[in-house]
């Protein structure tokens, strides 16, 4: 080791409550499991109310029923919410709190409303940071009125409003149909669903989908419901551009037969499934590996959700997109592994069952990838003028030109040279698209491009925040 006075001296604490980051389906089930075994975890969540993205709760005073908000998932959503409400008095629950950094065995927290910062040391930690939309930009995507599918869903669930009065949903993945259905059901005018996946993929995937017949049936239901309600659904499309002067006025696309179509609209919900939020795992020092199923690097886990870092467990979509039901199971499994590692007796049969169920989900997840394949030709078709990184206004042409000078294709070097991923989002939004364009330009596998190095803060940090507790750092800074 090279000599320095600036190494960190922060050994793993001998005690302290377990810490859970994220209060979605994974985090809530993890908390429930720990409580059931006599541990009282700290639960940190960025949102004002528990539930996560998928089961996001509406603000106080909003009166839509769970059925209206969550459809088929109403039962699961209500169950999770009620579970959390019941557990809450026993938890050290910290809503509105962003984990912006991890250093040694400390998490750096920001209370987003009060702009106060403090530090929490952990002995063991369940990371359940979830997912965000996987964005593949479309020319014109920076026009007002173009949202991600997840953003469109948040507007509906949390703000009780639609992203526009005449909406097109485009991209691919199960969320495409779910959000379209939720909008139409809530009284929104859905002009079209444009799926880049060819219809035939669905039949190819059908046998494997039966691993989860109930989930598969829901997908069929959304599609049938949309068609029954005269929402045009087009498969095998190619998205060309969003058009408009001050805001989006139309989407231009090619149908499966190759004919150019023009659909006037006031808003677009765009998305290609989800990508895991991995920055915290990265800052914690977890080892990553490329996962072809997710087409990106994900933190490594064992069958019980242990990461490569002692005391760190990864639950839910943050270690690879598996969906909300799997998140509940992996949250419980991660908590059981934590308990086991603390020497607390757990139910081995329950663990075995959860592992088995997660395996099944894995098969279903692979089938979903067949039904809604990633549009492999997206990068090759992306026009030179397409803005890939909207924070720094970096176009596909600039990425291609920079890649040409860097045959090894390391995305961190390319970021340094052309600023892609260097803006407010730090690559969380543009990283996928940039990676695809670089791999396509250099004709190398996506894995070779690497991943953008995690750097604190995970999300922007106000300069005028107030540090309220520094006692921990005096001895461990």
């Amino acid at each position, binding site marked *: *080791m*090279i*000599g*320095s*006075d*600036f*190494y*960190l001296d922060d050994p793993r604490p001998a005690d302290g409550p377990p810490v859970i980051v994220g209060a979605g389906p994974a985090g809530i089930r993890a908390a429930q499991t720990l409580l059931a075994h006599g541990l009282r975890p700290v639960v940190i969540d960025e949102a004002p109310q528990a539930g996560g993205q998928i089961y996001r709760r509406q603000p106080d005073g909003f009166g839509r029923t769970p059925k209206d908000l969550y459809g088929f998932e109403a039962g699961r959503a209500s169950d999770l919410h009620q579970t959390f409400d019941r557990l809450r008095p026993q938890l050290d629950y910290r809503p509105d709190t962003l984990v912006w*950094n991890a*250093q040694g065995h*400390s998490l*750096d927290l920001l209370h987003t409303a009060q702009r106060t*910062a403090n*530090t929490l040391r952990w002995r063991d930690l369940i990371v359940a940071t979830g997912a965000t939309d996987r964005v593949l930009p479309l020319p014109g995507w920076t026009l007002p009125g173009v949202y991600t599918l997840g953003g469109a869903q948040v507007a509906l669930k949390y703000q009780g409003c639609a992203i526009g009065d005449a909406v097109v949903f485009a991209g691919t993945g199960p969320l495409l149909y779910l959000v379209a259905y939720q909008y139409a059901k809530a009284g929104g005018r859905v002009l079209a669903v444009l799926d880049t996946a060819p219809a035939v993929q669905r039949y190819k995937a059908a046998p494997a989908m039966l691993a989860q017949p109930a989930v598969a049936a829901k997908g069929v239901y959304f599609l049938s419901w949309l068609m029954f309600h005269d929402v045009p659904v087009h498969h095998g499309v190619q998205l060309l551009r969003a058009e408009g002067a001050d805001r989006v006025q139309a989407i231009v696309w090619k149908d499966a037969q190759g004919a150019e179509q023009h659909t006037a609209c006031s808003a677009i919900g765009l998305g290609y499934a989800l990508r895991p939020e991995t920055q915290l795992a990265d800052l914690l*020092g977890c080892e990553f590996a490329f996962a072809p199923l997710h087409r990106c690097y994900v933190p490594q886990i064992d069958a019980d959700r242990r990461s490569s870092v002692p005391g760190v467990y990864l639950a839910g979509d943050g270690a690879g997109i598996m969906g909300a039901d799997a998140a509940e199971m992996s949250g419980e499994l991660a908590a059981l592994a934590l308990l086991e590692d603390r020497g607390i007796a757990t139910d081995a049969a329950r663990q075995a069952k959860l592992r088995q169920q997660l395996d099944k989900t894995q098969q279903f997840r692979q089938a979903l990838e067949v039904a809604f394949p990633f549009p492999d030709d997206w990068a090759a078709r992306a026009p030179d003028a397409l803005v890939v990184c909207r924070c*720094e206004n970096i176009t596909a042409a600039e990425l291609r030109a920079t890649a040409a000078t860097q045959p*090894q294709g*390391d995305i*961190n*070097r390319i970021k*340094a*040279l052309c*600023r892609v991923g*260097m*803006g*407010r989002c*730090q690559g969380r939004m543009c990283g996928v698209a940039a990676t695809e364009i670089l791999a396509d330009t250099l004709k190398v596998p996506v894995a070779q491009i690497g991943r953008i190095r995690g*750097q*604190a*803060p995970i999300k*922007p*940090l*106000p*300069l*005028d*925040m107030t*540090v309220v507790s*520094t006692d921990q*750092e005096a001895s461990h*800074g």
Partner: protein
Amino acid sequence: MVKQLATEVVVIGGGIMGASTALFLRKRGIQVVVVERDLCGSRSSGVNFGGVRRQGRSLAMLPLSQRSHQHWGRLTELIGTEAEYERSGHFKIARSQADMESLVRYAEKTRDCGLDLQLLDGAELHKRFPVGGAKVVGGSFCPDDGQANPRLLSPAFATAAARAGAQVFEHSPVLDVAHNGQRFVVRTPEMEIRANVVVNAAGAWAGQFAEQCGEPVPMRIRPPAMGVTEPLPFFLHWSLGVEGGSIYCRQVRRGNVVFGGGPGLVLDDTRARNRHTTVWAQLPQLVELLPQLKNAQLIRTWSGNEGALPDHEPIISASSRQAGLYHAFGFAGGGFQLGPGVGDVMAELIAQGRSSTPIDAFRIDRFTDPACST
């Protein structure tokens, strides 16, 4: 299959010092191979603050800094790009009368060094640029100091060296350096390179080669604590430092304010980060210095492993033990501006056996040779 290579000079390290040395060697027509463990300019050379500053340097360092300054003035000619270099001016703030007196003494001491320092009192400062709030009593302005983008500039030196005929091998960590009585043998996983001359420009990792060659140095790693805000409307023309203080900052044309000050954190042999206690100290200092930043947000922090010596001066020197071996490392906190000058001096030293710029204060044996303990 190990590739055999023979050359005149092997430079270990493709950071700004190594790449610049290679470039200036090529200008003298000398054959050179650069071996870089990672990517050229990807470590501390590429992730430092980007200050191109002479003000504040020691008297011993100023001649070399001035020589470098001349090269910065013709950067495009030298490396084919400006890499956002601007002679924006560097202002050192005094927050107390004592600090101001210290700046006055520095200005007097360096009067003949060509810095053209202008001492401004509080009133003059607020006329020219309202900075630092009420606590500022004045400061010292160096009009021709400036700033550049290290992410672009340091790799550009390696590219320019390669264009000039240097052979540059990236992802080529040096396993060992030996001398067979006639020539050096430098081994990497894929190559065995024979050369008459070896330049140790391995930055934070240079200490191990010096030690291998029988001349250990008391170098320690000191990681800077860097951060950057989101882009803001351009308001800050000068690069700023604080006398006796621990914050420095500059605004890039894109609008982001880049800052540093205080210690970072060494994670392991190759990685470093900012540290949370430092961030907590930096943010209020920044807002106090530049109230314009009150509502801004921090979007990224970073660091790099920099080598520091006890007397805060680098090592720029022929070996005291082995003919044909040269060292250029240990530039923590101030190497970026020196890059072109060091390359020029090293090439001169190798080609002519002497430097026309005084570098005696940077001898490698100064920590062991009692004659050097001045």
